[in-house]
């Protein structure tokens, strides 16, 4: 067992009284500490032990909610809205710009594990549609140029 996983799980489970009722916030907090935005198998096992529940229950919850992941993802998650308003507002261009800028298709992670590009459903930014969510921040009314700047800034490059 990796001691740092054990330590993290211990501190977070303790904060929530080792009560399985709090499984969702526990998993969200655990995942927020993962550089790759996921919960690994070993971590899932440790949490199950600490909360005295089955591993399958932990997996049921991780795989049910789209904000949680059992597979490693990029450090930065870019979610392109693919719901009704964004579709009406022609999000095809936006999808294309992000794919081009990142050199990957939707559903993939860049080879340096920096970015994951995925589709998501409406996150309530339809007034600035077509919209994307980069981690917790929302961006709308983008142009080709702005997409380029955004990605460069996230890469830590000044343009």
């Amino acid at each position, binding site marked *: 067992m990796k001691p740092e996983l054990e330590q993290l799980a211990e501190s977070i489970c303790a904060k929530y009284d080792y009560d*399985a*009722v*709090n*499984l*969702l*916030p*526990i*998993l*969200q907090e655990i995942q927020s500490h993962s550089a790759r935005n996921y919960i690994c198998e070993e971590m899932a096992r440790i949490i199950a032990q600490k909360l005295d529940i089955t591993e399958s*229950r932990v997996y*049921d*919850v991780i*795989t*049910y*909610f*789209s*904000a*949680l992941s059992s597979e490693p993802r990029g450090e930065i998650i870019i979610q392109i809205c*693919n*719901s*009704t*308003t964004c*579709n*009406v*507002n022609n999000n095809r261009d936006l999808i294309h710009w992000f794919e081009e800028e990142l050199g990957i298709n939707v559903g993939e992670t860049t080879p340096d594990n920096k970015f994951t590009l995925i589709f*998501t*459903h*409406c*996150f*309530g*930014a*339809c*007034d*600035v*549609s077509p919209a994307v*969510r980069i981690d*917790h*921040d*929302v961006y709308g009314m983008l142009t080709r140029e702005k997409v380029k700047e955004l990605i460069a800034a996230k890469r830590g490059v000044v343009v």
Partner: protein
Amino acid sequence: MKQVHFITELFDKYDGRSLQAYLNVGGFASLQKTIEIGSEAVLTEIDASGLQGRGGAAYPTGKKLRQAQAEKAARKFVVCNADEGEPGTFKDRELLKCNIYQVIEGMVIAGICTQSQEGIIYVREEYTNMHDEIRNAIAECYSHNYLGKNILGSPYNFDLKLFSGAGSYVCGEGFAMCESMEGKSGRPRSKPPYVKQEGFLNLPTLVINTETLSTIVSIIKHGADSFRRYGTEESPGTKLISISGKVNRPGVYEIPFGLTIREIINDLAGGIRNGKKGHFVQIGGASGGILPEWLWDTPYTYEDLAKAGLSVGSGAIVVADEDNSLLDYLKVVQDFFSHESCGKCTPCREGNRQLRFIFERITDGTVTVADYDRLEIVLDVMGKASLCGSGKTEVVPFRTAQRYFPELFLTKESLEAKKAVV
């Protein structure tokens, strides 16, 4: 009288962040009044207002609060539904952002009226960037005794916290919401018992929408009569709508019930962009009905929309113009439900699989007569036999599209006629 400011009265009057600023513009007056006049007088006022729940089901709020009050248990919960999962909807976002204190005030009042002492604001994960502001507002209210023990010296106690969703549309449904708050995957339970009887931790739970709570506060402040000055007999009052799509000024507007869809599009949202012609709107979210352009003079009321086979739903209005294909649009809707179906019941889980196959075949031109027969059966079974509202209402966009755009789904006869020619 197009846009009004009954619920949104304080939107630009304070920053939406500081409790003191809220108090300076008359905040918490409705809570003071509730403590003075007592819950029976407040419930009578809400009954008189005719307010219907704004979460989608339009159940009379006064009746719902009275039912919650009648439940007897040592612990009872009030949950503010801020999950706002219907695509095209963002009005609860504005209420949380511009006037979170009014939502909190509504929660305390709901707690007093139903003798519940514990509250939870269930905010969708997608609104994570607002979670800290909401937590701060809750902390402010605690430190000035608008929350906690013996609120403002009264005998009432009320605790409140935020719970974050984790990205699931179905968790907007009461039981699924309770399940997720209990550390389980958010799948609805069978009824009865109902959420109001055995909800969160199997205890009586009142799940109530963010806008409904905000409206209650305004009704207590200004009286049921001032609310009823707006709207129609069957749809009293005002409603927040989220309008988006091919319009010049997308956004959230508070309207009196009774404006027509065309007035909302042209006079509030600035008309269709680039002088294009309108095609259709979807009203009430992904589970809402499709209304063609030639029916846009329909008044936006519960009763008029019902006549057209639609409902107010979440208050969303997504506008499509002549460049948008309805078939593409319905595929997006179907994809949404395929992804969000929790899989617990067969009609919705398997029905969505079948719908996806049929739509694929409509798109690539290989659709057969048998597919259309199957479409009928699938929609029929889903609408009648799904466990929760998700599967039940998913059929509405397809049914209304069939009704208003019959050419979209070629009928059996026309398909056979086509075959006979070949």
